[in-house]
């Protein structure tokens, strides 16, 4: 067992489904045509893309023409936010302001995009979150004004797994829109939610929704943006007329086939969620019981969290050193702390939740998935206390 590797970082990426790879292979070999070509080679590619688009549309309960394939979820977030603002700018009168509401715990792809737009003079409101990692809907209601153009809120957080009430937010916005001549659009980054939660866009009342293939056992390098018919959007990558003229560039046919296949396989049923919750509870109970001075960050209520992501803090230990030490034991997890990124600052998510800096630096994210076993969780719980104890001896805390 100790020689094998244990992967508990499914929120970072998931392994590619073997069946899906098989479906992708022809488009990496024999069926290499450019989908824009009108001969047989090209048609093979373009009809494969059509099929994939239909599968995605079925999952989201929307029209195929409302789906745009991109190169990543980050690109989709950028297209949603920048693309909308770019299109609105053309429509606005001189002096009319643009306003975006988002939250302090968004993925960097949204947060940094908003910060960038802020430099261009666009007003951005960053909603706070409570210790549970959730925004307050009254806060949101209070911030929406007639000049608000966009609300961008993530469905489920990638660091702590907290789930926002997207359906309620969608309802609030659509009710406000009834009395407004200029609508507020609603974008949702649903990357972490897709495996577990209802993503039907009509249910959620969203205008824009981001998905990623590699978080749902698909290939890397493919993202999706759902754009509700009639939503103003301008292309960020200009060139050919690919993807309804919203994303120029020859399509990643194999990748798109992959995301179509993988999305059709998602079974976000109660039984699947329950199965993961049992594993999660075992993990949480085992860790809290065996490691003194440990705690779980974020909401404890099942309906407010994903079943597969747990964020712990271990007092007296720094997250990165814990990740490196566990890696030596063959266990792959990650830190909520941004210590290894360029900033050296603690996680913006945990800080927004009100965690003291040292607690935020002592965090560890464990994320499980389709192939996680009880045996692996047992092994993790067996190894962890010793590793934490050793680091505490070094820290003297």
């Amino acid at each position, binding site marked *: 067992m100790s020689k094998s590797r244990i992967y508990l970082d499914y929120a970072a990426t998931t392994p590619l489904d073997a069946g899906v790879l098989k479906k992708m292979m022809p488009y990496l070999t024999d069926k290499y045509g450019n989908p824009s070509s009108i001969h047989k080679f090209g048609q093979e590619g373009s009809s494969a893309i059509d099929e994939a688009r239909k599968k995605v549309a079925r999952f989201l309960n929307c029209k195929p023409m409302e789906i745009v394939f991109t190169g990543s979820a980050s690109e989709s977030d950028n297209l949603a936010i920048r693309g909308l603002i770019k299109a609105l700018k053309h429509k606005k009168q001189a002096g009319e302001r643009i306003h975006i509401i988002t939250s302090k715990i968004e993925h960097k792809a949204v947060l940094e995009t908003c910060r960038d737009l802020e430099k261009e003079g666009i007003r951005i409101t960053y909603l706070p979150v409570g210790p549970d990692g959730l925004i307050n809907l009254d806060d949101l209601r209070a911030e929406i004004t007639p000049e608000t153009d966009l609300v961008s809120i993530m469905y489920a957080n990638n660091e702590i797994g907290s789930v926002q009430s997207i359906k309620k937010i969608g309802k609030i916005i659509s009710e406000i829109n009834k009395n407004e001549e200029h609508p507020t659009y609603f974008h949702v980054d649903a990357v972490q939610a897709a495996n577990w939660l209802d993503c039907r866009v009509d249910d959620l009342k969203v205008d824009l929704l981001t998905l990623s293939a590699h978080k749902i056992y698909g290939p890397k390098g493919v993202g999706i943006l759902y754009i509700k018919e009639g939503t103003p959007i301008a292309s960020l990558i200009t060139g050919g007329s690919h993807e309804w003229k919203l994303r120029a560039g020859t399509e990643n046919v194999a990748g798109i086939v992959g995301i179509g296949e993988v999305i059709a396989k998602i079974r976000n049923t109660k039984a699947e969620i329950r199965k993961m919750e049992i594993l999660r509870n075992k993990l949480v109970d085992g860790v809290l019981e065996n490691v003194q001075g440990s705690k779980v960050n974020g909401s404890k209520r099942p309906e407010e969290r994903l079943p597969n992501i747990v964020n712990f803090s271990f007092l007296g230990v*720094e997250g*990165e*050193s814990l990740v*490196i*030490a566990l890696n030596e034991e063959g266990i792959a997890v990650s830190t909520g702390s941004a210590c*290894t990124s360029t900033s050296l*600052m603690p996680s913006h998510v945990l800080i927004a939740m009100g965690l003291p800096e*040292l607690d935020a630096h002592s965090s560890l994210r464990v994320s499980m998935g389709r192939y996680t076993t009880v045996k692996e969780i047992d092994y993790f719980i067996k190894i962890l206390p010793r590793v934490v104890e050793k680091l505490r*001896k*070094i820290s003297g805390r």
Partner: protein
Amino acid sequence: MPIYNKQIMQHFTNPKFFGKINNPDVIGKAGNPRCGDLLTLYLKIDEKSRRIKGIKFETLGCASAIASSDMICKLAKGKTLEQALKIDFQDVSDELGTLPPLKIHCAQLVTEALSDAINKYK
């Protein structure tokens, strides 16, 4: 995530100098909660020769902060205070086979803690 080299990993997984010294002659500190690294050096100093005869560390921090702490202890032990003050962060980094660029501040942190201790003792 930076991939640490063998030397760094060795000093991280098997540090030789961690722990407290009872009745130290002086204590040096560096770091802040914001960056997540907090370190304390405990020194025993021979009054006559002004040599560091004992040195230990306690470090809350990332793997390279722990490795750098162990290295500064190794480098400082047996040196006179004047010699020890001359150890700079580049020496610590070099002895560890070069820290990743993002982690160079760890070497600066440990030299800060050592200077803090020595300056207090003086």
